[in-house]
């Protein structure tokens, strides 16, 4: 890309100086049909470069990032319910099973609408704007939205995926170091779009287990 731009640029600059009307008062009529096949060189260069890009980089990398998901049983699985203007992460609790969600049951105490009648949901807990993930194994996030389209973007992880109401779209990543990383919204979602942010906290596996226990304890305290 930069190469072809550079070559174009050099040729362009040379022509502007060499063929200015003072230096070259009469134009060469035949120059318009010179060059023949050689004039297709830039097109061929770009085509060749693009074929290499598509088949050797584009398709394999796309497949790895967006199509070949790690096995759920070997990953940390989270459900995400986005809304104007926050991220709600649902964890399955100790049983590893997610509760169904019911939009009718959404209230101020149950922002993502966990279904109270679903036995799988007894130990599910929700973390708002804070996604905890363990180091050392992949995380899969199944994403949906309550209201409008959002886009889940972690700049440092180079991952992004639109979060669409009425759809359940997955995304996965595997962190390589512990720490705090910012989540931003990349799709205009209303007046609070700019402040719809969250945080990914990458824990060591021990810290992650401790955090889950703590959240489960909080849940029991509030329900009892």
């Amino acid at each position, binding site marked *: 890309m930069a190469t072809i731009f550079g070559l174009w*640029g050099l040729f362009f600059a040379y022509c502007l100086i060499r063929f200015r009307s003072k230096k070259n008062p009469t134009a060469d009529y035949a120059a318009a049909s010179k060059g023949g096949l050689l004039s297709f060189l830039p097109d061929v260069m*770009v085509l060749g470069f693009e074929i290499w890009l598509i088949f050797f980089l584009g398709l394999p990398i796309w497949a790895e990032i967006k199509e070949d998901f790690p096995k759920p049983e070997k990953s940390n699985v989270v459900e995400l319910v986005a809304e104007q203007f926050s991220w709600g992460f649902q964890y399955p609790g100790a049983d590893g099973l997610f509760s169904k969600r019911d939009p009718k049951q959404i209230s101020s105490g149950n922002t993502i609408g966990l279904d109270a009648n679903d036995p799988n949901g007894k130990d599910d807990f929700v973390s708002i704007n804070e996604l905890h993930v363990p180091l050392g194994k992949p995380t899969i996030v199944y994403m949906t939205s309550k209201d409008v389209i959002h886009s889940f973007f972690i700049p440092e992880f180079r991952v992004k995926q639109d979060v669409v*109401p009425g759809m359940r779209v997955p995304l996965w990543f595997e962190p390589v170091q512990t720490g705090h990383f910012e989540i931003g919204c990349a799709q205009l979602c209303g007046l609070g779009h700019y402040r719809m942010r969250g945080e990914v906290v990458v824990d060591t596996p021990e810290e992650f287990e401790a955090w889950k226990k703590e959240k489960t304890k909080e849940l029991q305290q509030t329900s009892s």
Partner: protein
Amino acid sequence: MSSSPEHHEPSFIRKYVFSLDHKTIGLQYMFTSLTFLLFGFGLMLLMRWQLAFPGKPIPIIGGLFGDTFAPGGIMLPEFYNQLGAMHGTIMVFLGVVPLGVGFYGNYFLPLQIGAGDMAFPRLNMMSYWIYFMGGVLMLSSFLMPGGAAQSGWTSYPPLSVIAPPGQTMWLISMTFIITSSLFGSINFIVTTVNMRAPGLNWMRLPVFVWAQFITAILLLFAFPVLQAGAILQLLDRVAGTSFYLPAGLVVSGTLLNRAGGGSALLYQHLFWFLAHPEVYVLILPAMGIVAEILATNTRKPLFGYKTIVRSIMFLGVLSFVVWAHHMFLSGMKTSLARIFMVTTMVISIPSVAILSCYVFSLWGASIRFRVPMLFALAFLPLFGIGGLTGLPLGFLPTDIYLHDTYYVIGHFHYVVVTGSLIALMGGIYHWFPKIFGRSMNEFWGKVHFWGTVVCMNGIFFPMFIQGLAGMQRRLYDPTVQAHNATTQILSPFQLLAAVSLLVFQFPFIINLFVSLFKGQKTVENPWEATTLEWACPSPPPHGNFLSLPQVNRGPYEYSVPGMKKDWSAQNE
């Protein structure tokens, strides 16, 4: 053929307001769209202030917006979103397209094919007035409760469906604008096919005519799809339907009382099915203008005329099968993305071919550096940047990171502003002597050119850096997010460039109006150009040509060996 001049003097209103003459309609398009461009640019200046100094009161004019938009002069996020949506809409649909197609197409297409007028003059007049009404409606939407449309120029549902009433106004005025475009495009196609002068076969058409012809076809096929999409969205808003709404939406804690069953992605497909061909509607007329200016000022035939024409056709066809590259991350099936990546990469080939032909045209030339030529020359590298920076967006792995960041904004502004708009400005300098029979001031033209080119780069180049740093688009206050803080330092600089860009438009505006009345009178063909529009008097009278031109040669016969003068007009 209706080329015989009418000899009665029409009334003032018939002559200047409800005129049937393609030239008057063209000029109406020109002045209206230039006004819209200036207005849309003004909206951008407000946004750039907010981005440079988030939360600081807007200086000087801050008090004018009132408490609904900017209490105490400090812009509200809702207002910022309105400015963003309206800036995009106005610039694309009311500014660049009406200038490139409405003005240039109307004025010069009939002249370059040696016709007396458009095929359907009444349809032509209607097209302008519908566009004008659409524009007025669009501006008036700022007065709606809750302000103008604020869901981006793309207006994705469900956000746009639950937005304040300004969005309804947006949809209605879009319907007007689209209708106007359809009337225009049918007219261009019929005129080009049926009204070419004797001897003007397809391969003797100037590149400008080819570009306008293909553009008209794109408009005709692409725009009705958005028309349908907009009407469905209008029904979702006002008639309680659910074309774009899935079941169970909960907005601010309240369950939306809708049947559901719709798809939010359906609208995106309908929108981009228009809006990608739309990109070529923005750029093709500009490419046509650049071809004319280049040939005239290099004093030689364009390099690879046939390659250029074929590439334009190829672009036109391919532009209909790349739309979903705007939707790689939308949740659309991932295997579809593979196909659209391939088509998107392929479409760069004809663009590279056209640009290469233009650059090769300089070889062996005798370049005259006059104002229009400066604009045409600037188009080449700057459009090159715009085009090449598009590749990482069409390429899946890099698009994941760059999608919806400032990198995208930088890319399409290089295409549309330093590409299209630069060429459209150059075209005004090129054809001004033909339109008004007077010439524009060279010195102030050069001031305008250099100031404009430098400032445009000052605004848009930093966007690539911001985008690569991960700054998302459409953020009212980017500094709220930590990863955007590093590039915040560029924003005041961009504001400065934007304000300077405004300052450098004054030489142009003043030059335009002063030259209109006081400019030096010119001859019929001041640039010694070959195409047919230079064969009629300046300004062309009603009916254009004094006698029907007979075309004997191709469009760019400059410096033909053995000829005394270095140009041979098509009708000689």
